[in-house]
């Protein structure tokens, strides 16, 4: 991570730290990517929390996706939780950098989700079954015991991706879109 030139790590031996009141002001970007918010107040606690919580929430969302079959959860809830992880990340770190490691444009994600959900519906037709019919497979795995795989989970994955896409689209339009708008208006008035 230190090789990433976008992160301006504090140089060793740098003594000039300015007045002591600013010592605890963050000097490096806490989040992996994202634009610095010029002059805007940064909430260090929020950034730090977002950085710690973000992956955890994503894992939770995947848990919800798979747990949905037997407990509360499902693709819709899982997608919303993951989306809110991104929302938190956006609130803390500003709009996402296009050069982020994984950069998926929201419309692509929405389309991907819809495609997966729709196509899985047609797969049973190829085996002579009804549209959207699901099948149950049980696989014995050493150490883990028996794992139940229900094909309808694929539909749920489609829903999951689509919901994430919708939330990211929201962040892109109402979030950074409105922000860029405000910046443009500011420049126009200046």
């Amino acid at each position, binding site marked *: 991570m230190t090789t990433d030139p976008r992160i301006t790590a504090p140089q060793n031996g740098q003594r000039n730290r300015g007045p002591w009141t600013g010592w605890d002001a963050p000097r490096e970007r806490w989040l992996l990517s994202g634009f610095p918010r010029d002059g805007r107040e940064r909430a260090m606690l929020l950034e730090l929390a977002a950085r710690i919580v973000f992956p955890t929430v994503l894992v939770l969302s995947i848990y919800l996706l798979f747990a949905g079959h037997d407990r509360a959860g499902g693709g819709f809830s899982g997608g919303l939780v993951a989306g809110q992880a991104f929302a938190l990340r956006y609130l803390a770190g500003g709009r996402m950098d296009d050069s982020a490691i994984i950069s998926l444009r929201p419309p692509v994600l929405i389309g991907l989700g819809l495609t997966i959900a729709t196509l899985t519906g047609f797969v049973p037709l190829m085996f002579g079954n009804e549209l959207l019919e699901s099948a149950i497979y049980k696989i014995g795995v050493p150490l883990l015991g028996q794992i139940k795989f229900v094909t309808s989970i694929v539909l749920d994955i489609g829903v999951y991706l689509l919901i994430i896409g919708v939330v990211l689209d929201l962040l892109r339009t109402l979030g950074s879109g409105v922000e860029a*708008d405000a910046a443009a208006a500011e420049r126009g008035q200046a």
Partner: protein
Amino acid sequence: MSAFVLVHLLVALALPAVARRNTRAAFAIAAVPPAAALTWVLARSGSVLSGDAVVEQIPWAPLLGLEFTFRLDALALLMTLLVAGIGVLVLVYSIGYFQPGSGDARRSAPLLLAFAGAMFGLVLADDLLTVYVFWELTTICSFLLVGQAGISRESRRSALQALMITTMGGLAMLLGFVVLGEAAGTYRISEIIDEPPGGAQLAVAATLILVGALTKSAQMPFHNWLPTAMVAPTPISAYLHAASMVKAGIFLVARLGPVFVGVPQWWVPTLVFGLFTMVVGGWRALHETDLKKLLAYGTVSQLGFLMVLVGQGTYAAALAGAAMLLAHGMFKATLFLVVGAVDHQAGTRDVRELSGLGRRMPALAIIALLAAASMAGLPPMLGFLGKEAAFGAFLGTGGGGLLVDFVLVLGSVFTVAYSARLLWGAFGDKPGVHPTAAKPPNALLLVPAAVPAFAGVVLGVGYPLTDELAGSYAAVFGAGADAPHLELWHGFELPLLFSVLAVAAGLWAHAARARLTAVRNRLPKLLDAQRGYERMMALLERTAVGVTGRTQVGSLPTYLAIILLTVLAVPGSVLLYHAHIPDDMRLYHNLLQVPLAVLVIIAAIAAVRAKRRLTAVLVVGVIGYGIGGLFIVDGGPDVALAQFLVETLTMVAFVFVLRRLPTRFTKGDAARSLRWPKLALSVAGGVVIALAAVLFSAARQRPPDVSADFIAQSEKGAGATNVVNAILVDFRAFDTVGEISVLAVAATGVASLVLASRFDRRRRSTRGAAAVASAEKPGAVLSGNGHRHEEVQE
């Protein structure tokens, strides 16, 4: 047969990948499926002409009785010769015509093939709804092929005009199909022909179907889309707007002719519109200076002629009609391809600029001469056979028949005149015009134009073959004892006299064209179909703007008020009428409900009293969480989870938007005066919804069977112990797919709107801010509270 149609469409789908690299290869590949289809059909022609139709049926939606039915009979064979035969020629011609790698070529290759497939499906279809599907597919292909890149306003307008007029007719036709199919009890054309229904329904169906046929085949006054569609590249005009697509209307009339024999709503319009179109189209063709426009009006005229012949429902007229259908496809395709070659080599197709090309391109001139001779009806061409038979078909039916023949001769005079004008205009030496510099076209342009021209000669000289082809279609009307035949020599009879008259008068008309044009310019312009169309479109647009402006006022309170009033009026009044408060109502059934309800009520009151927008949003969020809490108490963790998540996300979205809105609610004077009505409406709306909630939840007496069934099935059938999830992804998975589709559409729509309005504003601001460009530096530092500044100013 269905396989051929499918192969056309599939290859067309794959073709863009080829066209991107090599357009010439793409056209060559595109020519293969029609060639295969033509070979296959020709191989079966022997048995088909002897009356053995090849039938194929594919169930589509059997529950609805929908199926694709294909049937290769004599008429289909005749049309396939045109559709597939000329299709191959046009595609080969396109290799030489289009600039390699140009955008037009890249677009046209797959579209032309798709069109050929749709047209092939149309002529083979034996089911009214199958006909409709392919009919509209051809319209769409035509729209795309005429519009091309849509860069020029003219191409856009022409493409749209063709689309508007033909789909309008197509919709009427669909209605007619439904009337006919329901009256007959079947949509199979061959079955309807065997047992045609009768009565008023038949008359209604005839009228509606004719609207479709007349618009598609460019009969006056719906003809105007055809000349304007000539902005398309010439091979496309040759194929779609001369040889095949515009024949679809003629084909349909020919196909359904046996059903409507003797129905006046069928034969009178075809006769009247046809004759009128033939004469007026020919008259207008005579005055055009653009060779392509000349041919277009010539096509309109000939389509009128064909309409007269196929609409009559007699053996003789059908025989002439089939012969003319074949003849017209051949000579008109040739002439379009010739004009395309002239345009391609000389760079112009204006009669006033071309001169002396006959000497430079003798081969092309001979080809054009053969085709024009067929068009003018000179022996021994195919066109002569058709025209003689046509004149003969109306003799012996009394004074009316003679009158029809008189109009047909008048139309033929114009046909001869514009044929001569075409030859003279393209190839003649004109005094005072500098000889056009042009090289002769290469074989790729020459051969495809030559094939149908020579076919016209062969089918004319080999008239017994033509007679068999056309006669086997006409046989559906019953040949009778002394059935007429197509022959080159009938003896000295009236039709021959008519032909001689037409040729002589036509040549005179060509010689006297300048005087005729002067006469035309003096005639008052009574009706102009093009202007009529434009006025109608303008009226439509004005009405649309007016209606939208009045209903979409852009005020959120107004929309809300309309929605609430509707709720009060429709379900609300019924609800009050049937209101029946259940007796066993309890205040609560779980103690936890009480604090949650109190919380929700307090939050609701606070939302109304809030002065700041942010406060209002937060308080509304509290209401949502309170409702979520109630879900948990009632044992719905899934619903509660979704409720909490959606509520959170909604609040985040609200906060995003609130950044661009004033912090406090503003109240204008208008708002103050409307305060009481608003209050009354909101209270009434709230009461009705609350009442509905109570009544609806009390209406359920016991758990419905379906719930029990879901619960019983979820573990075994769907492999889920969570029945809510089992319903979502298995039992009602179709609903889920539908819902997420709606969600995707809505999200994309909202995002597009937001981004589009941003883009608009940005463009406006860059235009206005040219003077203050120095301030436009990207990444300009905002002042710390600039954000807030702006909120106040908005």
